[in-house]
Structure formats: structure tokens, C-alpha cells
């Protein structure tokens, strides 16, 4: 089995493959359909697994070091306090609390600094403060929570306790309108970036929700999307977009110009190596399946992207149950 100890670089040479964390597992070290990845205030990596409805034990938020040491998990499947059914995203407030969106229960659950359940808010509806399948979450510089309210085709700005502040959007494909938006990111100036999922574009707004620009069209060329979802902005202002159904991550400059492309170069993770060490027959079969090596390394429905302060790019590679890590050069 390849371990990809070489460190291939991205299409334009701006990023280098660094490492991978992951293993298909319903509990403990491993993920099960990871849909959100971010760094916590403790510098640790947090990964939310959506899992399989028929294997609900897999639903949880995992905590590990950035080099793959498993530290624990919180949250579980269900509709009670501290539980989720269809987890979509994860964000940390300036106070260090973890906010987790559940698009089945139409609510946001909040976990304290010890990762114990604290409270939740949200109920289904279309009025101010109501939610209909919430997805992306991001906190702005002022500490307000931005929620992508998917089936209301809007972005809502809420207080940390869920109080309504503002909203914008509406169903459509004109400037400032959305069609089932998914991801959201906020840059250092407070500008808000939203992946307008079914319109195959990214829209940028100022902190008051005024439309600034949009980029992207439908397709699989550079600067084109097939249902973009996860989005992040780094300290240089570069924009990272998970181009979900094209199985890649695209990088853009502040003006929306194409910069680079990641397609996935994953090797074997530490957790995967432990698994294979215990299952030598599987490793032997994997080695025989030479023609299958290539797809094993590539992204398969990347859902979430996060960039930390050191320029490390973390991509939740959903159908491969791992987080691929790249270094910005």
C-alpha cells in the first residue's frame, strides 16, 4: 500500500501535501463521513462526523492533535440535549464554545469549553431567528454568529445566544440571492463569503450584508464549480472552496481570480496504519489492487476546508473518512 511519503504539490505549486488524519470508524480514532473541520481555541483539531443514519453511533465531534493523536469526542446521535441527527457544521465562538448545526432538528447546539453540552437554540420556520435546515456557521469579528439558513435561502446574523440581528438573501440567482446555500466564511475585515450551492458560485458581502462580488459558474474548468460547499479565507485573503461534486478544492485570490487547485494526494494515516497492522490480509489485497491506488489518494466529496494560523490547510474528505492536510508554500 502506498504511504505517499513523497510530498506532491498542487497544480500551480503553491501547496504541498503534508499529512492525513483519518480512518473509517464509528467511534474512537477515526471519522465517519466528516463534514466539518476546524481548529479549536486549544489549538486542537475538531472534526464533526455526520455518519450513516443506519449506524448512528458514528455521529460525533472528534478532537485530536494536528498530527493525529486522538484525544476524545463529544456529542452523539439523537434529538435530545447535546445530540444531533444531521450535523452540518462546527464553529467556535470568541469565548471558546463549540457551536454545532443540525439540519434535521433545525437547531444549533452549544458545548462549553469542557465540551459538555450547554444549551441550544433554533426551531423550524422562516421568520427572523427561525431556521430551516441550517448548514454553515461562522463567527464575525464582533462575535456575532452567521448561520446559513439553507432552505430559507438566506444568511442570518444572530447573537451568540441565538437572538436575531439581521438577515439577507432569498431564493433566486440574482446578486444577493441564493439557491440552497451551504458554507460560510468571514475574513479579517468582516466580509462574508457564502457558497451559493445550487447556483454554483461564491458571493461576497460586507459585514452589513451588502453584495460586493460573485465568482464562479457551473462546470469543471478553472473557476467553475459543481455544487461548492465548504469555504475558508486565510490571513492573506486567499479563498478556499470545496468544489464538492468536482472532487477538488480550488483556491482564489481576493478578487476571485483562480490561483490553484488541490485534487488530493493522501497517503496512509497513522490510524489507518494501525488498522492495517492488525489486518495484514487486507493490506496484501490492497497491494494487489494496483490500479486502484490512484482513486485512493484523491478527494472524494470534500465538504469542509479550514486554514489555520500557520497556513496549514485542512480538508474534510467526506467519503474517504479523513482529513487531508496541505502546507501553503
Amino acid at each position, binding site marked *: 500500500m502506498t504511504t505517499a511519503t513523497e510530498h506532491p504539490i498542487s497544480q500551480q505549486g503553491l501547496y504541498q501535501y503534508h499529512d492525513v488524519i483519518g480512518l*473509517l470508524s464509528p467511534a474512537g480514532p477515526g471519522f465517519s*463521513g466528516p463534514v466539518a473541520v476546524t481548529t479549536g481555541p486549544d489549538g486542537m483539531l475538531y472534526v464533526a462526523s455526520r455518519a*450513516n443514519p443506519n449506524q448512528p453511533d458514528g455521529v460525533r465531534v472528534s478532537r485530536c492533535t494536528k498530527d493525529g493523536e486522538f484525544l476524545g469526542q463529544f456529542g452523539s446521535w439523537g434529538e435530545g440535549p447535546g445530540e444531533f441527527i444531521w450535523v452540518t457544521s462546527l464553529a467556535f465562538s470568541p469565548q471558546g464554545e463549540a457551536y454545532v448545526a443540525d439540519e434535521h432538528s433545525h437547531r444549533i447546539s452549544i458545548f462549553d469549553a469542557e465540551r459538555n453540552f450547554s444549551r441550544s437554540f433554533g426551531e423550524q420556520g422562516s421568520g427572523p431567528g427561525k431556521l430551516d435546515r441550517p448548514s454553515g456557521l461562522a463567527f464575525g469579528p464582533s462575535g456575532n454568529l452567521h448561520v446559513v439558513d439553507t432552505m430559507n435561502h438566506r444568511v442570518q446574523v444572530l447573537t451568540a445566544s441565538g437572538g436575531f440581528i439581521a438577515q439577507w438573501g432569498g431564493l433566486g440567482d440574482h446578486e444577493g440571492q441564493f439557491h440552497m446555500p451551504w458554507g460560510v466564511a468571514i475574513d479579517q475585515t468582516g466580509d462574508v463569503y457564502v457558497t451559493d450551492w445550487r447556483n454554483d458560485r461564491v458571493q461576497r458581502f460586507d459585514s452589513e450584508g451588502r453584495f460586493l462580488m460573485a465568482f464562479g459558474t457551473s462546470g469543471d474548468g478553472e473557476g467553475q464549480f459543481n455544487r461548492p460547499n465548504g469555504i475558508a479565507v486565510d490571513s492573506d485573503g486567499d479563498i478556499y472552496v470545496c468544489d464538492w461534486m468536482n472532487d477538488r478544492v480550488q483556491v482564489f485570490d481576493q478578487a476571485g481570480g483562480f490561483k490553484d487547485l488541490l485534487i488530493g494526494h493522501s497517503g496512509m494515516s497513522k490510524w489507518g496504519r494501525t488498522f492495517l497492522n492488525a*489486518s495484514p490480509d487486507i493490506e496484501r*489485497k490492497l497491494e494487489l*489492487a494496483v490500479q486502484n491506488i490512484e482513486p485512493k489518494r484523491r478527494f472524494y*466529496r470534500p465538504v469542509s476546508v479550514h486554514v489555520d494560523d500557520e497556513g496549514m490547510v485542512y480538508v474534510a474528505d467526506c*467519503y*474517504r473518512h479523513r482529513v487531508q492536510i496541505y502546507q501553503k508554500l
Partner: protein
Amino acid sequence: MPEADRSLMAHLLRRAGFGATFQELDRYCQLGYGAAVEELLHPEQQPAIEEDVLERYYIDWKESRNIEGALTESVYRMNAYAGLRPLQEKIALFWHGVFATGLAKVLHEKTMLNQIDLFRESGLGNFRDLLLQLAKDPAMIFWLDNNFNHKDAPNENWGRELLELFSLGVGMDGHENYTEDDVKNAARAFTGWTIDDDNVASLPFGKLPWRFCYLPEDHDEGEKTFMGHTGNFNGEDIIDIIAQQPATARFISRHLYNFFVADEPQVPAWQHTPPGDPEAIRILEEEYFRSNYNIRSMLKVLFNSDFFKSDQARFAKVKSPAEVVVGTLHLLGDFTFPKRGIFDVALGCRYMGQDLLNPPSVEGWHTGEEWIDSGSLVERVNFVADQVGDIRQPGVREIVDALFDRTSELDPESIIDGCLELMGHVQLHEKNKNHLAGQIRSMLDRRSGSVSGSPGEHRLAEDTVLHCVLHCMKMIGSTREYQFA
């Protein structure tokens, strides 16, 4: 449209699909029978479901990791297409029953689902081409051990079932259709037809797709004699010869008749048991050859035939569990957008005796009256009653609203007639209808004190009528006619 035409259209949609809602029936009736048949035969011309939305919410379905996920994916898709491309789903269900392949052995859910997609895409096309694609289908190769069929160590499993259960059948008209040597030589011709990776274990990063591959170095290049033909045959040559056989025409015709027209004896009996309607089978056999083995053409003849349209054919076939579950879901208008709960509903098929994607053997499910036993009957009736008695279901609400709109004075007879029509033009035997009327009348008596005099004389409280309507729908769901197609 005359009542007779509406009744015929409802019959067509129960057989070529999973039944129709009253709104769909209105549309098809406006279209006319011939045009409706044409539309059904060309599902690819109808809109597709929104795959991106499906995958967004059921994120695991693209790479189903267990049999439950694969089962729910199948049922959701059948239901989602029941109004758009009903025959596409029905023909996939048909071939799944004929080319029965199961997860109990295959253990690779995505590969199994790919096989069902093959039936969706090619199931109405040329039978010879379908058989060739099946021979290259990774799930089938693994299911019947053709990955263990080597030049120096042939495995006859695929070769035998190809002839016995997938094309010729053991025999017809009292004689056998092939010899043991034909089986051995067919197997030799398929040596080297294998898959690139037969690892079924759970891998560190999930399972990877299986793909067909041909290994020429593992193929037996020797001379083979098959069905009277001799040559250095490869698998494709065997399929060409199979497709030309009268026995294949008979076999496919009987299967189509059994699935779409009337319950026949089970396949193992076909060698010695003649068709129930030999003339119908002869017509289908003729079309098989005339159309160069085209399934769509055979079905066009079938749906337009007198034997299909006859009164005797209506409500004369026991619905399969999948037809009961999907037909009822379709009636309810439920799961038109991804939401939780489809798994619990999909399990209904399993509880009624049809574990989709996991047939009991390569012979598939026995059909007709064999669907029914005391346990499965209770499951069938309870399933339908639970679903159609729920006013929160959009389709039930539409039926109730339409009933209230159409009739200002609701008496037992008009409630029953309205429900029967709005549930897809179900036609009850007079005895069953009278029994149902007695039940409804007695219920009205209990809830409103007394209902005497001629029907319709009394204005009843709306909640009383609603209760009776829902009860009536539940009872219709338990009738022989609803459980039959």
C-alpha cells in the same frame, strides 16, 4: 374520459408502474392510452430526480456502507421516480428478480447498486446487450464466482446460471434446452472475465469500486462446442448464440408475462408446465425475434395486447412487497424531498418477504400467491393502514380535500366511491364494497348517534366524516383488490 378508459389506464399504471395518484390518472387519461404507453416506454425522456440534493442530505448513499443504506437508497429512488419514470423502476425491479444477485455474498453495496443502475439504464433495451453487460457486471461476477473461473481451473457457476436462470431455462415443452457439455463450454468461454479488486473488507478509507477486467492470459483459447456451434468462442460469442435461441424467446416472454400480466407457475416448473396463455407467449416470442431482442418492443406489444387489457387481467396479480411499499408511498406523496425516516419505511419490504438487494437465492423470489402467508399478509395490511390513515401525509390530505370538494353530502356510499377513485381507481368486488359500506355505516352510527333514512340526509360533523374517510382508506388498503395489481 369514459369510466372504462380510466379503469384501463389505472390498470396500465399499476403494472407498468406502482399505481397512479388521482392527479396523475387525470393527466394520463388526457394523454390517451397509446401515448401513455409510449411515454412509459421512454423514461429517459422524462425529468431525472435531483441527484445533488439527494446526495447532499443522504451523504452516505453515494458510497453506501451497509445493506440498510443500500436498501433505503433503492426504495427512495423507486418512490422518487414512481411518478416520473415508473417503468424505469419497474423494469429494474423485474431484472433484479430475474438476475437475482445478493448482498449476503457480494457485501459491496455500491457495486450492487451499480447493478441496479444497469437495469435502470439498459433494462428496456436489447436483451443480448443487457446480457453482455450483465456478464461484465462486477456484482454478478463476484456473486457467481466468475472471478474464480480460470483457464486451468474452470468454475461453472456463472456458465450454468446464465443458461438455467438467466436466458434459456432448463427446458420447455417437456424437453431440455441445453446439455451439461454446453454448461462446461460456456464456462470455458468466460474464463478471464473477472474484476480488478475483490477485496470486500472495510478498508481504512472506505471501499473502492470494483471494475470489470479481462485477462487474456487467463482465457481458454481452445475450441468449444456450444449449442451445436463450434469455434474458439469467447463470452460474447456465447451470448450471441444464446440470444438466437427459441428457448430464450420463450424464457423472456414467460418472465415478462409473469411480471406484467398474470401470475405464472414458478420458473423451475416451466420445463413441464406450459404457459397459462400460450397465444400470448407466442405473440411475445414473435416480437422478440422481429425486434431483434428488444425488450421495449416486446413491452409495447404486451401493453397494447388484448390479453393485457382484458378484464380478467385486472386486480389478478399479487403485488410484490416492493410494489406495496413504493405504491403506497407514492400515493401518500411522501419522501419527495430528502428527510429522515425512509429506512423504517423501506424495511417494510423486508418484513413482507422481499429483502431487496438480498434475494433468497440466485433463483430470486417466488412470486404470485407465494408472497402471501399469514405473517406477510398482516405486515402488508398493517403497513398500508398505518400509512394511509395518517392525515399528515400530503397525499392523504389531498385525497381528503378532493373528496370534500367533490361531494357536499358525504354518506357511506359516496365516501367509499370517492376514496376508491382517489386512491388510484381501485375497483372493489361488489361483495367487498357492501361489506365496507356496512362498516362505514356502523361507524357513523356509533359516532353520530344514528344515521337513518336515505344516505346523505344528515349533515355530519366534519371531524366525524374525516375519521370515517381515513378509516375507509385504511380498510381499502386491506382489501384483496388493493393488495393485488
